[in-house]
């Protein structure tokens, strides 16, 4: 890279379009081995992500931190562009807390019925759904 840049571009895409596209000074993602912080001029890296919270420190307002709930997916960083590709991702301000709550209850019920019927496939799916709902609730509450 000829010139040292201080800015990292973060964009998050899901099947329903671009969810997030901003310049950042710091990006923290939930990688498989734990939280992973990315700053400008990072080495090219590819990593899968866990269900969790992405935090972004923006350049235009250093005091603020954006939070995005992400359901797995992966991240690629090269040339100061961080691309996060996930099945679904929601910004904290877009999360509907009542929907997340009801999703959580639904998942808990599903876990109960699945463990009663000894259905490991269904159980695993319900556990992931629960994890996602919990994640969304956590990210939302984090904002408040």
């Amino acid at each position, binding site marked *: 890279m000829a010139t040292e840049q201080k800015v990292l571009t973060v964009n998050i*895409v899901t*099947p329903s379009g671009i969810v997030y596209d901003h310049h950042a000074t710091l990006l923290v993602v939930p*990688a498989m081995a734990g939280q992973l912080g990315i700053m400008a001029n990072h080495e*090219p*890296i*590819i*990593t899968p992500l866990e269900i969790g919270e992405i935090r972004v420190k923006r350049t235009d307002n250093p005091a603020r931190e954006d939070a995005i709930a992400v359901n797995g*997916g*992966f991240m690629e960083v090269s040339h100061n562009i961080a691309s996060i590709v996930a099945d679904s991702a929601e910004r904290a301000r877009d999360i509907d807390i009542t929907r997340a709550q009801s999703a959580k209850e639904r998942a808990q019920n599903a876990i109960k019925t699945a463990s009663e019927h000894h259905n490991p496939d269904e159980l695993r799916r319900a556990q992931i759904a629960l994890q996602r709902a919990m994640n969304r609730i956590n990210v939302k509450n984090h904002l408040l």
Partner: protein
Amino acid sequence: MAESLMDIKRRIASTKKTGQITSAMQMVSGAKLSQIEKNSIAYQQYTNKIREIVTHLAASQLIASARQKRTTKATTNGIAEQSVRHDISLSNLLVERPIKKTGYLVITSDRGLVGAYNSSILKAMVEMISQNHQSADEYAILAVGGTGADFFKARQMNLSYEYRGVSDVPSFNEVREIIKTAVAMYDSGVFDELYVCYNHHVNSLTAAFRAEKMLPITDLDVSEVTDKDQEYITEPSVDDALDAILPQYAESLIYGALLDSKTAEHSASMTAMKSATDNANNLISDLSIKYNRARQAQITTEITEIVGGAAALE
């Protein structure tokens, strides 16, 4: 005059009603089309991004080395490892098996009234199969959409899976089921390669038949990548990274095809309904002329009768 005045009047009324229905259907399809086109544009950004990342990976030789490793492993112990996060296991995505049987995922519509949409797909399919295969043991068909399923069943072609009731604007979760079944069949060796066959939406007037190879992942065009020697760190390991990315890539390809074919279906339906409405209008104007002529003829006859009657009285 063969038809009476009343008959013509009745025909005009019924044609008008049909025309109203078709024009309403045209508008419904138009609304669905614009909705799904908006979705497709958003989805395009996602699929472009995935493709970009996967080609980067391919360019940095990570995929090639992983494939090599897996191919040798598969031949030595023959046990497929399971993916942790996805239904598709990585080794199955990459290893090219000898082709004994080919799978075709054929996407058609559930309903009719879509013009030549279904027939063009089915015709192309039959042609392709008869060209590439000698016997029914060499292929398996997975039909998405009722028309295709019924067609292949009636011809007793090797239909091994059918899925009906794809919604008008399909969601990613909905398509999961189809993908999962296709991949499970691929895993268990029902077929050794998978093509997805559908109508590609070119614009609102034209659609083109397409058959794309989806499994195993082979056709990665690395020529568009400029910096080939860029090296990536992979966290925590190459295998884990590929295990997350490649299955998602395969899923996105299949979902993309389905979205594309749905778009083509809506536009085909819109075009078909538009021409039906136009035909109805033409028919109505022809019938109106006929009606007016018949009425005129009747009046003329009446006048002649009156005149004739009056002359007889004198």
